[in-house]
């Protein structure tokens, strides 16, 4: 009987629909794995304790996910997604810069070093625009501003936030859209499918009650989504795109610890968890 520790580790502090589905998919494939609660993780530097392990990073907090990946990689693990990919895709400015570096379409974006400079950045990007926190998800604190007076008030609130990072202001043009964006699930360089995400809130995050519906996965969607995931170095990604008024696709963001409950529910026949399990097994066998 094989008593060696499993090569596969699922790192997560919250076991939600997605983590449960991935673990069930690994079980179905007869793959041995351990669930490691990231809250209990500590890694001593200069050891090879995790050498040979493949770790799926499903930690819900960005900073914990990023540092856990860095520490595990330093101890010899191969982390999916890599620490570098989590760092890039978890920061909106770094993502925008990576997309532009790879020649991908993304909305006009500016970064201001102070809330005061944010007004100048907004004037250059133009109104209506969106002020977003650099780190964060589910549409939290994302604010649509339609004119300078409104922007000034929002930036006053931004200036009062306690974290120095909050005072770095990320602004982006608001791409006119009906009430929907597109989510493409990418695993191992392959686009699995696409959904429309439609909501009453202008922020079309499923966490804000947006509804997912199947979307045709055309060649341009495939090309952009796969290239966007590659631009941040993500093996597993949920790429969010939007169609502008002229029907041109532009990439909004790349999510490295993708939630896919709405996606699987919309499609029924696309097994994102299974694709992730297959990718992990392939990496463990490599």
């Amino acid at each position, binding site marked *: 009987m094989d008593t060696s520790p499993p090569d596969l580790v699922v790192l997560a502090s*919250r*076991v*939600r629909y997605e983590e449960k589905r991935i673990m069930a998919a690994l079980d179905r494939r007869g793959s041995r794995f351990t*669930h490691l609660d990231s809250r209990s993780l500590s890694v001593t530097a200069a050891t090879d304790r995790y050498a040979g392990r493949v770790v799926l990073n499903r930690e819900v*907090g960005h900073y914990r996910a990023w540092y856990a990946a860095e520490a595990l990689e330093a101890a010899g693990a191969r982390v999916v997604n890599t620490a570098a990919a989590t760092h890039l895709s978890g920061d909106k400015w770094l993502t925008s810069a990576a997309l532009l570096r790879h020649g991908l379409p993304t909305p006009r974006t500016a970064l201001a070093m102070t809330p005061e400079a944010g007004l100048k950045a907004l004037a250059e990007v133009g109104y209506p625009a969106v002020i977003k*926190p650099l780190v964060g998800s*589910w549409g939290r604190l994302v604010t649509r501003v339609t004119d300078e007076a409104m922007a000034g008030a929002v930036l006053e609130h931004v200036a009062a936030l306690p974290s120095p990072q909050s005072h770095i202001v990320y602004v982006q043009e608001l791409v006119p859209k009906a009430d929907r964006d597109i989510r493409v699930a990418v695993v191992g360089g392959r686009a699995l499918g696409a959904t429309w995400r439609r909501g009453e809130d202008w922020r079309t995050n499923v966490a804000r009650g947006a509804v997912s519906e199947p979307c045709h996965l055309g060649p341009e969607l495939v090309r952009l989504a796969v290239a966007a995931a590659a631009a941040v170095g993500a093996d597993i990604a949920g790429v969010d795109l939007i169609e502008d008024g002229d029907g041109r696709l532009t990439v909004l963001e790349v*999510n490295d610890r993708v*939630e896919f409950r709405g996606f699987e529910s919309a499609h029924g026949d696309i097994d994102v968890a299974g694709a992730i399990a297959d990718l992990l097994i392939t990496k463990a066998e490599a």
Partner: protein
Amino acid sequence: MQNVISGAECPECMAEIYVGDDALVSEIIECTDCRSDLEITSVRPPVLSTAPEVEEDWGE
């Protein structure tokens, strides 16, 4: 169909919550009475605690 292991008590409202046999440690469930998010801290026997509050950097 999943089987019920046994009941656990919601730490917020004391309602009895039945935990399925496919439950996992660290899984987040919702109390059917008070709608609180709860974390399964033990499966056999099932023990529940209040789930951690959502932090600023949580997400995808």
